[in-house]
């Protein structure tokens, strides 16, 4: 169970990438990010399909790339298994020939048979890729890669060419296979649901940078910085303009929270963590106006407006009654679920609490005066 150490810099045309991470030697690591954020490039750097400008890549004791030592093992000797986005099957070979391509000649037939069976491809052995459905091609690509028994599995958006209702089953199959072969896998995707379903570890990429990396539950609950929160689907992001004595304020109003770091530029909270109540709790609540309600299957979304007209999204179970449009409501933002977010720097791990003082927060005008002061402290 060797961890993968990556510390690379890469530049091409208008794009540059710099990543330093240790990817665990077991389980599925998901690289999540918008298109153009460098997810696929990072994967290609690890595989040896692109050359870093500087840095090093090593899997446990094997050094694959080291700029200073002049080491650069070619891709065919790295023992990485790659599943490409469009599968890159060999069109001139049958399913069995594709799967056996990377296996020593003596073992080829037996290994191909094994993987054809393991991935439910029975009866398709003599077909050509052009005669297969999307899901079947995906499984052939996976089998071809796994048949070589790679030390590291790299999957570049492996489900993007497959119909939505097939993905569920293919994802579950993939998770089962990765668990069975006990090798680490890196999966690149821009699909949040996919990351949630298959990711043991999550890396959030934005603009050539690994903004956040860690265990999945940790990342989903605490994005650390603004850009990562956007990628992770956090829609309630409140800008912070000033703070004082356990009170944080922005154009949207103020909250009585203590422990907010000085470098916090935003406060984030997940839609399902916001409470709804009739009474106005002075410290951790805001007044809002209900705008509309939307059914989303298992949940129901309430959209409301804050003081500065920005939107706040609240999710409730499908069978919970929600206030009518136009109603003035009080929304509770429990301190333990509000996460401070940096810009370009991660504030992950910060725990906020409701401020201890029982006196109400000072009026906004007072806070504004402190703004200059606290900025100068930063």
């Amino acid at each position, binding site marked *: 169970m060797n961890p993968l150490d990556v510390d690379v810099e890469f530049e091409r045309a208008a794009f540059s990438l710099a990543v330093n991470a240790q990817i665990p030697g077991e389980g599925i690591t998901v690289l999540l990010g918008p298109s153009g954020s460098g997810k696929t490039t990072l994967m290609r750097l690890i*595989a040896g*399909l692109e050359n870093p400008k500087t840095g090093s890549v090593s899997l446990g004791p094997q050094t694959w790339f080291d700029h200073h030592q002049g080491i650069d093992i*070619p*891709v*065919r*000797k*790295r023992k*990485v*298994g*790659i599943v*490409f986005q*469009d599968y*890159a*099957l*060999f*069109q*001139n070979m049958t399913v069995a020939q594709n799967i056996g*391509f*990377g296996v020593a000649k003596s073992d080829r037939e037996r290994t191909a048979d094994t993987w054809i069976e393991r991935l439910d491809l029975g009866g398709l052995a003599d077909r050509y890729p052009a005669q297969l459905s999307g899901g079947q091609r995906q499984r052939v690509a996976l089998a*071809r*890669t796994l048949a*070589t028994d790679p030390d590291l599995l790299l999957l570049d958006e492996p489900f993007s060419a497959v119909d939505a209702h097939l993905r569920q089953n293919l994802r579950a199959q993939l998770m089962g296979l990765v668990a069975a072969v006990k090798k680490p896998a890196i999966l690149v995707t821009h699909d949040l649901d996919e990351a949630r379903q298959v990711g043991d570890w999550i890396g959030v990429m934005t603009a050539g940078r690994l903004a956040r990396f860690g265990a999945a539950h940790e990342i989903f609950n605490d994005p650390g910085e603004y850009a990562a929160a956007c990628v992770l689907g956090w829609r309630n992001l409140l800008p912070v303009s000033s703070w004082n004595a356990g009170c944080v304020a922005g154009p949207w109003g103020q909250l009585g929270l203590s422990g907010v770091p000085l470098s916090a530029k935003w406060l984030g909270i997940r839609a399902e963590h916001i409470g709804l109540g009739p009474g106005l709790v002075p410290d951790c609540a805001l007044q809002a106006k209900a705008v509309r309600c939307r059914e989303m299957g298992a949940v129901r979304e309430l959209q409301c407006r804050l003081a500065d007209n920005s939107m706040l999204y609240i999710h409730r179970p499908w069978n919970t009654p929600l206030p009518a449009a136009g109603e003035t409501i009080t929304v509770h933002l429990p301190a333990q679920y509000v996460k401070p977010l940096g810009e370009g720097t991660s504030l992950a791990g910060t725990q906020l609490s409701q401020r201890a003082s029982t006196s109400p927060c000072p009026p906004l005008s007072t806070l504004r005066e402190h703004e200059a002061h606290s900025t100068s402290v930063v």
Partner: protein
Amino acid sequence: MLEALATFDTEPIFLTLQLASMTLAVLMILGLPLAWWLANTKSPFRGVVETLTALPLVLPPSVLGFYLLVFLGKGSLIGEAWQSATGEPLVFTFSGLVIASCIYSLPFVVQPLQAGFESIDKRTIEAALSLGATHLRTFLEVVLPNMRRSLIVASVLGFAHTVGEFGVVLMVGGNIPGETQVISIAIYEHVESIEYEAAHLLSMVLLAFSFVVLLIVYGANGGKREALIA
């Protein structure tokens, strides 16, 4: 017509087929690595090499023939070296014709091959390498089989263009029966001598050949017809 058939001289036909086969063989050996290099290099010389390769496409046969005469002929460096090595000159001989044909037909072989190499999905090559295959195995088992159409088009066009060659042959090879008198020259000779029936017979052979060539090329396209040029 029957009269012409009786005295029909098959020598130009065999000479033409011999010339076209040898030219194609030489061009395939030179063209495959050249096309591969052109399709994959990031070298700054690529543009120059590509332009030189394409030059015979727009250069008139008489200009090409003239420069070949100058550079291969008597008194030229190459011509003299060849003569001292083999005992015969390069111009007005079969060997000279092969060299001239290779230059003349070069773009018709290299360009389809280059397009073929460029049409190969780079990811299938990367996939083969990542599965542990050597570059040679990747080339033989993944690249070549997936550009069969380009190989056929290159072979057929290279062969046909050599068969149809006229101007360069006339200037570099002349009109020596059994040595340099290929079909297209023979037709010209017959027309000049107002032997229209013999010219007709040979023209029919070439016309039929050209039809078959196009059928093969369009057939290789697998229903998806494409322009040969551009």
